[in-house]
């Protein structure tokens, strides 16, 4: 009897926290401590850490760029926000909105639906490598292993850098890696 009441109370408290978290778009500093300490907060990974002082991670860099709203929407839809907020280190090739816009009409919308999550993950993971590959160390013809889909090939010609033919148009260091802004979405070669 007592146990049931206890459970009921906890369930009530839990529901409240979820409600609060959803309405406030995540945790507020000190919220965990100030609410009922016997109920765990809703599950958010490292992306949910409230910290506006530290250097931005690769996700923060993308979120802060108005040229990457499509990429950010895709990373969210693919549920890769937490993974990319972790320690890494990552080298991310970040296609701009314009790069996504070059794809055939409807491609992006088609990938953002829940049923295509896995495909979207595979595409995005072909843009992410575990490791920091600094621009000055990149060599023409160098191959870099991506999280999914195999290798990309770096091109260096006349001081210009490319990845699988896409131009690297900017370099943004992040706390957990490096972001290369690219002007095309890149795709893994089809499996033989």
């Amino acid at each position, binding site marked *: 009897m007592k146990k049931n009441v206890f*459970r009921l109370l*906890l369930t009530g408290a*839990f529901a409240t926290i979820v409600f609060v978290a*959803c309405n406030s*778009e*995540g*945790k507020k500093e000190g919220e*965990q*401590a100030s609410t009922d300490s*016997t*109920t*765990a*907060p*809703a*599950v*958010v*990974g*490292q*992306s*949910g*850490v*409230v*910290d*506006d002082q530290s250097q*931005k991670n690769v*996700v*923060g*860099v993308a*979120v*802060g*760029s*108005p040229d990457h709203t499509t990429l*950010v929407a895709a990373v*969210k839809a693919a*549920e890769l*926000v*937490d*993974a990319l*907020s*972790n*320690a*890494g280190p990552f080298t991310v090739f970040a296609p701009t909105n314009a790069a996504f816009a070059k794809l055939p009409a409807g491609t992006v919308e088609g990938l953002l639906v829940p049923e295509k999550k896995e495909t979207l993950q595979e595409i995005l993971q072909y843009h992410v490598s*575990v*490791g*920091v*590959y600094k621009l000055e*160390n990149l060599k023409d013809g160098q191959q870099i*292993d991506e*999280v*999914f889909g195999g290798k990309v090939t770096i091109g260096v010609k006349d*001081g*210009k*850098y490319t990845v699988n033919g896409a131009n*690297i*148009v*900017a*370099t*943004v*260091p992040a706390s957990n890696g490096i972001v290369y*802004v690219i002007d095309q979405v890149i795709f893994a070669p089809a499996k033989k």
Partner: protein
Amino acid sequence: MKNYINYVAATLAIATLTQCKPKSASQVVTGDAASKVYVAPGKYDEIYNFVSGGFSGQLAVYGLPSARLLKVIPVFSQNPENGWGYSEETKPMLNTSHGFIPWDDLHHVALSQTDGLDDGRWVFVNGNNTPRVARINLKTFRTEEIIELPNSSGNHSSPFLTENSEYVIAGTRFSTPLEGNNDVPISTYKENFKGTISFIKIDPTSGHMSVPFQVVMPPFNFDLSRAGKGPSHGWFFFSCYNTEQANTLLEVNASQRDKDFVVAINWKKIEEYAKANKGRVTTSKYAHNIYDDKVHSATSTISDGIVQFDAAELKGMIYLMPCPKSPHGCDTDPTGEYIVAGGKLAATIPVFSFSKMLKAIENKEFDGEFAGLPVIKYESALYGEVPKPGLGPLHTEFDDKGNAYTSMFVSSEVVKWNIKDLKVIDRKPTFYSLGHLMVVGGGTKHPYGKYLVAYNKITKDRYLPTGPELAQSAQLFDISGEKMEMLSDFPTIGEPHYAQAIEASKIKDGQVRFFKIEDNQHPFVTKGEKESKVVRTGNRIDVYATCIRSHFSPDNIEGIQMGDEVYFHVTNLEQDWDVPHGFAIKGAAMAELLIMPGETCTYKWNPDRVGVVPFYCTDFCSALHQEMQGYMRVSPKGSSVKLVWSLGDFSSDAPVAPAEKK
């Protein structure tokens, strides 16, 4: 090239991305989690959990499921809390061929086994930095032995045990040039650098360690290892990376090849080879330190002469299995048939089959050789791959129901999968970025299961903040059901790497409660207050002291002079559980002693000024603990003050020397 930094900075007005993912009850700790970890006051935990302290150099002991910290066992680092590495008796334990070293980096834990089951006798741990392996006695929870490993650098692939504790293995992370050829350019890595794998033999009765032989390996970085069990008993499996053999910027240069290796070593064959007196003897020196409870003291012996074999000469004993990509963990399942390697840059988890491996060897299904060692064809030894397990697979442990649990560092989750069909059953996030995980008995033939603990590398906002340096976090899961359930979250000491856990019943009843005073064979023991004395030998002073509630004998000493070296040998005369006494002298460049009942510990003190110096008991031992104190008078060198000592002389005269009492 356009630089986006300023522009990005200008647009960073948007706060850190926050999410509102779908949340179901299964994703959060539910109400009955509290009752599952609640251990009522006065009740015992079900499990002892031995958790490596990483850069603390020590080993933490937690009770599960409460996650209460029971003890920190000092191993490789000095511990002022109880005088470990400070007292004369324990200083030799931290001796090495480099001299006394006050610290190391403790990564992995191996409970001793009998017939593939944890037997609760000892726990072995490794020191990474100055390669050593230590053995802790689980009757006293004290470090009893430390052996240094010559020709080894970065003792990471260690200590892993065979199923009857025949051998502990110790493989090198760093390859280096070996003796006789060690002053060479770093750029000659491929030609001149070598890895080694040391075999540490365990005496089945005393637990004492020795290093009968070492195998000289190609200069890969050996990462982790497991012994085979059951049918694969007699073999060891090692993960290795940097088969590129790079010596700089490894984060890039050691990630070039698509596959590194799992190295399979038939140690029973090597043992036979060693018994045939083959191999060459090196002159490398190493320390071997043993603590003996009879004399309450450690000795350190510097030995030399290790027998070495070149891997390439051990035909038919060592094989390479290609393994995607920079494998970290290398774990054998309870049946001994499956070897799971977590390639931290790999997109899948390969599971090798021991029986297929044997067949491949028999049928010579090789892909040539690498560094003189036969490479088994990947598919020939592969049972299958776990597809898309998550990002950054590291370590795998096993339950009692045929399931495996792999830690995913990059995606920060524990992934449960079935060993037979390789299908993912469940995944749960950890907070944040776990390295090792452990299941109770997860390294044995018959895992206990029930609980899993994930040991994380990043803590950030998990607990009340404590400035820039945070304790690392661990999370306890209930794994008795189909889905894992997170029960609690607790901070750990240092940096937890691997941990193991064992049923409390296998340990708790065999505990030493105190040391019998009549068995104390310490050379400076004082078995009763009447025997307490002070002896001068040149400028060395030995104080044969006792302590018991609530005084020291003697507690007044005069006649100490500047330039003397004073050794205070304190014997705790108590014969009662949990009545240690502490000892400290004002101004001494020392940690306290914490003396267990029946034990003798020695405090070395060099007086640095003339005057009267107090000492006292540092452990609250009785209602009159605050009265447990004494004085020593330090006089100038050559002073005529006689050496006298006393306890309880009420006269106003100076203390009386025993010679005068007679």
